[in-house]
Structure formats: C-alpha cells, structure tokens
C-alpha cells in the first residue's frame, strides 16, 4: 500500500494563500488506510484551515469531499461539480491521485497536501514501515522475502556490510534492524543459507523505465 504523510500546515497554508474558496479532496484508498488523507483527515484539515483563516482574519470557504480512488479518472469525474465551485483543489491523495485530478481539471490548480513517502505496511496501530521500492525488478526470491533495497540503509544486494551492530541492528540507525541479518535468519529457517554465498552483480535499475508503464496481457 502507498504510504503518505500530511505536509506541515504552514506549507499547506502557503499553497492555498491566493485562494478564497478551496476544495479539500481526500482519497478513500491507500491514504485512508494510513491515516493521511481519508474522510476523517479531510474533515480535520478543513476544520483546521477554517480556524487558521479565522485566526488571521481572512475569509476562506473550505469544501470537503472524498473520492473513492483519486487515481481513477471515472471516479474523479464524479466530483466535477464540486471542483467547478472552487478556485483550487487541495488533494490529500498520493502523487498519482494528485496528477489524475490535475489532468482531469486542467484549468484549476490541484495542490498536494500530503507527501507520498513509500510503499509499506503497518507495523502496529498508527506506524507504517517501508517495504518496497518499486524497483521494477523484484529480488525477493533470493533474500527470503525481505527487500534489501529499501530495508538496508545502504540498499546492498550483497550484505551485510561491516557495520552491523550487536543485536542485529544497523550502523546508520541503532533503532533499525539490519536487513541482512533478517535475511540470514530467514534463509536459515528455510534451510537455504547457501544463497548467502551468491554474489549478485549491481542491479539493472534500467528495468525501471521512466515513466513506468505496465500493460496487462489482454484477456
């Protein structure tokens, strides 16, 4: 799932400073799950903006809406009447959602209110961790299902480095696990430690052709 984080309010206030009427648009998929841009965050941000504007003595009218998936043109089209009412849209979706909105409403500024951070999973209530770098050339078969590209601070394909701390922690951040220690333990459990002997040449990041495109095989 895509994880995002709300931008600091000061930045958001600056983004919408020129406008008197804005639509705060949430997305009902990934960013709802990671508490960054669902209906509730929309309601709270809208309320906060009204309070901020009132405090500064300037007028603002803030509308609220949440699209089921902002990265779908058809779903974004459903809010066109609301968008027509405002001067700018403040989107709480990931970068993909913001761009879909921007493309659908080319005459309106669509401004991002969150920073899209990574693809990850919840570790516990309210805490998400990065799991996948969307590199386009998956390596997980060789590492016991643990991605060293994003979970190793150095993104090493041949680890661990010499800096692993006691207790299997990372030298960059003693709070974080060394991905290669995790990989070793996992492979050990599976009786596949021989994989650790393999040397992997530098990864061909050109597999990620920018901008990426995935064409499903037509049924």
């Amino acid at each position, binding site marked *: 799932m895509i994880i995002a984080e709300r931008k600091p309010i000061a930045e958001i206030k600056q983004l919408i400073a020129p406008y008197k009427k804005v639509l705060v648009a949430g997305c009902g998929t990934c960013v*709802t799950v990671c508490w960054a841009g669902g209906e*509730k965050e929309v309601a709270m941000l809208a309320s906060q903006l009204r309070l901020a504007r009132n405090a500064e003595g300037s007028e603002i009218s803030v509308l609220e809406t949440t699209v089921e998936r902002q990265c779908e043109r058809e779903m974004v089209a459903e809010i066109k009447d609301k968008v027509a009412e405002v001067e700018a849209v403040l989107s709480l979706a990931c970068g993909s959602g913001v761009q879909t909105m921007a493309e659908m409403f080319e005459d309106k500024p669509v401004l991002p209110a969150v920073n899209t951070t990574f693809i990850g999973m919840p570790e516990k209530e309210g805490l998400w961790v990065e799991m996948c770098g969307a590199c386009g050339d998956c390596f997980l078969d060789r590492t016991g299902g643990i991605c060293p590209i994003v979970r190793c601070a150095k993104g090493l394909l041949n680890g661990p480095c010499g800096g692993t701390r006691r207790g299997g922690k990372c030298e960059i951040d003693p709070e974080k696990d060394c991905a290669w220690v995790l990989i070793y333990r996992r492979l050990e459990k599976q009786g596949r430690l021989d994989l650790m002997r393999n040397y992997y040449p530098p990864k061909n990041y050109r597999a990620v052709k920018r901008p990426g495109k995935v064409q499903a095989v037509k049924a």
Partner: protein
Amino acid sequence: MESKIGVFLCNCGGVINNIDFDAAVKRVTKFPSVTYVNLSSNLCLEEGKEKMISCIREENIERVVVAACSPEFNEHIFREVLEKAGLNGHFLSMANIREQCSWAHDGDVTMKAVELVKMAINRVRLLQPIEKKELPVSREVLVVGGGFTAISTALQLSRVGLRTTLLEKEAVLGTRAEELESFYGFDTSAMISTVEGDENVEVLTSAEMTEVVGKIGDFSVRIRKGEEEIFRKYGAIILATGYQTELALAPEPRLRTEEEAIYGINIVSQEQFCSMLRNSSLETEPKTIGFMFDFSDGNSRFPTLATLNNALAAKKKWGSEIYVFYKSVKVDSEGMEKLYQEARNCGVVFIKSDITPRITGESGRVTIEAKDVFLGEDIMVACDVLVAEELYLPGEGTEKLSSLLNIRVDSRSFYQDANVHLYPVTSEKKGIFLIGECRGDLDLRRVLTDISSVVMNVHGLLSLGKILVESERVKADPQKCVACLTCIRVCPHDAIQLVRVDGSKEVAGISDPACYACGICAAICPAKAIKFQGYRDEEILAQIEAIGESLKGRNVAFCCEHSAYPAADLAGKLRIHYPETLRILRVPCAGQVDVYHILKAFEKGATAVLVLGCEEGACHHITGNTRAKERVEYCNILLKEANVDGRRAAMFNLSPNAPHKFVRVVNEMDKKVKESGR
C-alpha cells in the same frame, strides 16, 4: 418530513425554582419541529409517566425531549415510557436542567435551560432507532484449571444445570489441594471424585487450549489432549488457573553442601514443610524451626496464612521452638488475626525485621541473623529447618493463556488490573471470567465470593440459551469501510473482526454482544465509516450547533458518563457552583471524543474545550482516557499550527465522586479564558 418532537419539562416537584418555566415553555414552543410542549412537576412518578404516554399517543409525537433531572437517574425510565407509548426507546434525548443547570448556578438560569433544551432537540431529531434482537448462546462453559476454585465452580454450575468442561493441564485434578486440606480442613479428595462423577462435568486432564475464536455466547475452542485434538463450542470461558510459589532466596554459593545448608533438606518450602508434617516416619523431629515471610514481596497474604498454619501444626505435633521472621504480618483475611493470636499464645516467637535476614549454614543447621526492630538488637537463631520465604506468582502458563485470549495481566502478571470499573470476576472481554488465585493474592473467603459471583454471572448469561442485545448500535458502514484494521487494533474489548459482506468485500464487523459501546473505534476510524448511534458526528455537531451564535464565550466539556458527568451532577447536588458558560456533552467514554469534534467546537467559537475522563488506570474501556489525552495533545498541535489565538483544549482525569475537582478544573479553565480577554 421532519419528525414531530414533544418536549416534556419537569420542575421536579418545585425544587427547580430558578428557572422561569412559563418563559421557557414559550421559547421552546417556537423551536422548529416542536409540536408539543408540556410542563410537569412529577414526570418520573407513575402519574407523570402515564400522562406522558397518553400525550405521546394523542399528539402523535415521534421524538421526545425530557428536560428534567440528570439522565444518570431516569434515562432508562423514560426509555421505557417511550417503548410503552409505541416509540423506539432511543428516540429520547434529555436536557439536564436540574443538576447541571438549576442547582449548579445562582440566580435565574432560564436562558441556559432553554439552550440545553435546544441542544437536546437538535440531537433528538437526528437519532436513529436501535432495535433489540435475540441471539442464541451455547449453554456449555469452559473452566480452565483443576484446583479447588475450578472444581467448585464446575460443581456449582452443574447444580444450576449448565454443562462444564474442566480443562486441566496436569494429569490429575487438585495437585495443590493438599494445602487447602491442611489449612482449612477440606476433604478435597471427595470433591474431586464428586466432580469426576458428575454427568454435567467433562474432565479433560493433560489437556490445554490451543486456539480460541469467537465472541461471548459462541466461543470456538481448540483443545489438545496428547495427540488428540478436540474442537468445542462454549458460551463462556472461566479462568481459574491459580498460582504457584517459588522460594524467594536465590541459591547462593555460600549455602552449598560444605556449609550444610541445603535446599530441600534444611531449607524448605511451605509445601515441603507440609509433607514433613504429614510424614509419620521422620528420622529426626526438628527442634528449632525458622520461618520467613514478607521481605521480598509485600503481597504476602497467602504466605502469612501458610506460615501461621504450619507453625501451629509444628508446635502441636513436635513441640518445636519456632521463630518467625517477618517485615509485617498481613492479617486482613477472615480468621487470620485469631490464628496469629493463637500462634503467639502457643509460644511462637515473632521477630520483626526491616531488612531481609542473613542466612548461613553451620554444622547441619541454618543460621538466621536479623536485627529485631523492637529490641533494637541483633538476633541470631540457629534452626534445624528454615521454611524460606516464598514468592507468590501467577500459575504456570498464565502468559501464554493471556496472549491466546487477548486478556491483559497486571504488573505482577496476574490477571486483571485493579480497575475500579471492572467487576472483580469480569475481564475486559465479555464472556471471559477470571476467578480465584489467578487474580492475585486472594484468601479463601474472597475465592468463595468469586465462585458464587461467576456462577451467578454465567447462569444469568447462558441459562436461557439466548441473550437480548441491541442490534447494530455501533456499526461500520460496509460501503465506507476500507478494511484498514484500525478499529480491530484499537478495540479494548476485542469485539471487532473482519467479516465478509455480500460474499466478497471484507469489512470491519462489530459483534453486538461483545461490544461495550464505548466509541473508541468510531473516534479513530480514518474513513469515518463507524457510526455509533446517539454519538454520530451529526448528533454531536448538532448539539454544538445549538449553542450556536451564543457559543462565543462558552466553554464546552465532553464528560465521560462513568466519571466526569456524575461528578458534575454531584457538584450540582452539593450546590458547588461553577460558571454558567459551561456546556456539557455527555459521552460514553473520553475515548469517544474525536479530535474533529473538538476542532468543530472551536470552529463554532467555543473559547475552551475540556475533555474529562476517568482517572488513569481506571478507564471502563481500558484505553479510552489515555487515547483521549493523546488526542487532546494532538488537537492542541493542530490548533497551534493553525495559529489559533492561544485557545487550547485540555484533558483532565477525575473520578465520579470528585465534584470539587470537576469544579476546580472548570473554574481554572474559565479563569484562563477570562484572563486572555476573550
């Protein structure tokens, strides 16, 4: 079309004397959708209730507002009135114009009363009906444990006609029962054979629970007994897993054989000492015996009992010299004081010491050195046997069982914290009960109370084979739920799980019988999918809206109905006055208060917002008050970010019997607001 709203005002036999009811009636009549307004002086008496029923029927009233005393007293009575009049009992909203208006302030409070009625009217028009439904429950009960407590419970449940499975991990029942036999004179072997012969009790020994799914009335339990796997359904689960003891003295090198102080030989546990007492062919009878307790663990009710009993028995049997070293003697259990006196009278010597005595071995004897607090002198006693201090610990496997059932343990790893809002034998999960020693240092009398209490609870719950529950009071809208699992992770009562709707989409399913309706899930749902009837956003905001233009200068307090709300009522009753500007919203738990609600109150112009919940560690819903605290802090960050002119929310913990604290925090808030000139 708008529902017809009837407003029933009551002056409570004339005790509400600072409200001009005629003026209030005139004002209330003008509110939209209000089709009927009545003033009574005895709404809660039979006469008043009958009048209310006939009014509702004759005037075709669809929603009812009662402006009278606190809902804490009479809400359920008025719900019944509505039901008798043919309305859903939940189409009721109460305005507390007595405790939190008339009695709380000096002088004429008509305007405030009218505003409270308006808040109730705004809320009542949005309320949705809550239906009741019957659910089947299994009449089988699982009792985990095989000791005195578990066996007694199974026998008593059998007597009231409920079938029980007794699940014991050891090969036989009653492994610790001998202690009870010597202390209390119970014939435990007779009990064991009775339970084994009881046709309502299935005894499974050498067996343990491996998986539990489901909710109250319908637990599915997987049990492993050797190679065999047994799968059963139970309506309730009772944990009676008891305790275990461990010698408090850590074996130290200086106590090894060469100095002849040996664990199990001349340093023994209470249990080993019991078997020495029973042994008629003991080679040499101990002439001097030492006992120790209460040095390492202050929870020494049971060790004290064991010491006193064993000391007396040894005195009677062998006439030995007995020295008891202690820090303090806990004699708060029934009969303990008498036992202590008896021991003293028999010549048992009690030596109080503030520090743990030093133990050494010398020529086959154990030397105990301590400083007597009363004599102020060092004392040294050489004993043939030392009955060492024992630590009193939760039964083996408690940790495993608690994680299997998702039940919390306290700081000493016994089940259940000392939380005033939980009844002694109930856990935070409905249908799971905790009794006896597994709850910590209990004596026999308390254990017997636990047993009767759990039998009554379980009988009331399961005897009819069905329970009546409110249907979908808290519900996740399947259209809006994104299955983010947040609610499942935060529910303190384990009442939510993923369910499939329409055979495909997975959404949060809130179990009606397991739900305590605290609203913690509704306040955190990022998709705003969870609706808690009576406390939905609309209903909360409508009340805030009612304070309306006049909200300027008003302070809003969200008060938990378990603590702050009754505390506010009590302040009224005691006529401890607080500013009239306060508007109280009653919530089921401080954890139900959403950051959004607080922001909205500020947006509407509130000068201050208070969230008042139970004392720390005493939340009815375990985490509600701590979540409320975090949310208020977060809310203040948002307000600061928005540059809101110094207005902040605040959270306080208080108990229901703390009217002075309630008034103090309200006054402090009011003072701050006034000082800042708003």
